[in-house]
């Protein structure tokens, strides 16, 4: 193990350079007040909720933690409880069987809070829309602030979306 650790010390990092978030990230409508912004600083705690996804989006959200994307360098981290979260990252078409769990997770998240939906299914139910077992997109159940499209979106797109969320909130603060 020692050898592996020493090697890691001298090897160049794998981490991707810092990204410029896409200004054109669609559905970016974030409402945030100065006080909240000040309280959050430049850190975001995220609680991931699978509300019915096929697990594809989860795999790519997981990848954000690997050495290439290293999401924690941006002050973004995944937390184990909605009570610790600023952002709910919701995937999947919301199934009828998960609807209440999603609503209760949202209710358990303290204000100020934002909801980011991930993937085509998160927007409108995707290819599962119209099923007896599916409610539809995330916004059918809880208000959505940002949508990150893709099936599933590659980690770099999810990262860009989350950075856009942070950038946008700080921009709003600057102009006030």
């Amino acid at each position: 193990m020692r050898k592996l650790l020493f090697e890691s010390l001298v090897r160049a990092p794998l981490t991707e350079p810092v990204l410029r978030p896409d200004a054109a990230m669609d559905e970016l409508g974030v409402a945030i007040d100065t006080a909240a912004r000040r309280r959050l600083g430049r850190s975001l705690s995220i609680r991931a909720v699978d509300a019915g996804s096929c697990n594809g989006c989860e795999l790519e959200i997981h990848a954000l933690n690997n050495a290439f994307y290293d999401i924690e360098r941006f002050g973004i981290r995944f937390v184990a409880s909605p009570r610790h979260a600023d952002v709910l990252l919701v995937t999947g078409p919301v199934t009828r069987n998960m609807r209440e769990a999603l609503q209760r997770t949202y209710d358990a998240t303290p204000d100020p809070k934002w909801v980011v939906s991930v993937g085509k299914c998160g927007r409108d139910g995707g290819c599962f829309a119209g099923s007896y077992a599916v409610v539809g997109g995330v916004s059918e159940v809880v208000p959505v602030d940002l949508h990150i499209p893709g099936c599933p979106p590659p980690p770099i797109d999810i990262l860009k979306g989350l950075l856009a969320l942070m950038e946008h909130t700080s921009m709003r603060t600057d102009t006030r």
Partner: protein
Amino acid sequence: MPTLTDLLRDGQLVRHHRPCQRVIVEPAVWSAAAQGLSEGSWTLLGLWGEASAVHMALLDEPVGAIGIISLEGLEGSYPSVAGHHAPASRPERAIHDLFGLEAKDRPDSRPWLDHGRWYLRFPMGARVGPEPKAAPYKFLLAEGEGLHQIPVGPVHAGIIEPGHFRFTANGETVVRLEERLGYVHKGIEALMAGATLDRAAQLAGRTSGDSAVAYAYAFSRAVEAAAQLDIPPRAVWLRALMAELERLANHLGDIGAICNDAAFSLMHAHCGVLRERVLRTADVAFGHRLMRDCIVPGGVVGDLNPEAASALRGLIAEIRQKFPPLIELYDNTASLQDRTVGTGTLKPQLARQYGAGGYVGRASGRAFDARQALRYPPYDSLTFEVPVLNEGDVNARVWIRIREVEQSLALVEQILDQLPDGPVRNEVPDLNEPREGLALVEGFRGDVLVWLRLAETGKIDRCHPRDPSWFQWPLLEAAIEGNIVADFPLCNKSFNCSYSGHDL
């Protein structure tokens, strides 16, 4: 002891079912088949319903033969299989929830997929029922002094799929675990009924996100079996290439994640890098990190990108160089071994009874691997071994994955060496009569089964994708018994069952 062939002889053969036989039987033969299951004469591969029919796929393991027996023209009920053979219990509960068909005298009559939240009952049944009143779910009891319950989920602490686990613990020791699943039920089978092949292939590829290739592969092979369609040789090989890349990515991710659940994050970090390399190479080769929608009935969507061969060889070289030190690290870290050795032991007898596939079965002495047992092309021309262990603990499931990573690396190399030239896709011909097909494909988690009936219009009449998790989830309940609650994430990750693939 009767053989599967004897059993199938007692029924009325269904025309146009390929590649194996499907026969319509009398209830007595159905019950005899269930009895045969309980005696271990054959293995249950799947049990699924239609509005007024039930089907049971059986595997004769020593011969590698598959047969389907069906009861048709049912009026609301059929003889229970679970009464003889416990692994059929959850499929029977699902059949009841979806079709309203009751297995007479089934041991567990609680609902399974239906949580009382759809606006209707029996969505695929002959008579769709009115909205039911949601009744509280009755968990099984465990009684004794000092026992307490720990409810977990459906929303879990990690970035994973939703499901509910009800632990009954005595202090730290788990006395009983009961799973409650169905939270991500999306109604995939109902969406597939009447769908075009394109749409159904899209749905199949989204049944379980980590097995996008395996599902598209099994679905396409089932369509091709039904339509008696041969696909170009190059497509046959490209499919296997994708399947092995998917296996590599998932196994590498799992090995790291299991160690992470034993609080050993160094393995997780290094395995995560290798997994990402596989996904990026898949993106270079096929244009999608998870290779989604790449396999379709008739072949594959596109040929390899020009730079793919060198990227793939580079990937193999990198994993060959970086993986062995990680294996050594796993093997030589006592604190990690302390967590994985002897934890979550699954007895070989149970793995055999449930017909558990994948690393769950192979770590507990069940050597079945669809690639080897059925030798579907191109695996009939490839050389590989199927690793098997008997210990059945978390450690054994890690080692099976390690050995399978090595095998997959060799397979990718062999495929690159032998990849034939030519076109990659044939058109699916028009059908003028209903056709049925079945396919079994080895995904990273185990054998994925797809059975379907094509209507004469060429659309899907009925399609049932069966995830290997159906016969692995119940075993997790057995494996965790007597372990401490804190080892549950470790055991769960070592099984890594699919929620979405199971819930459909």
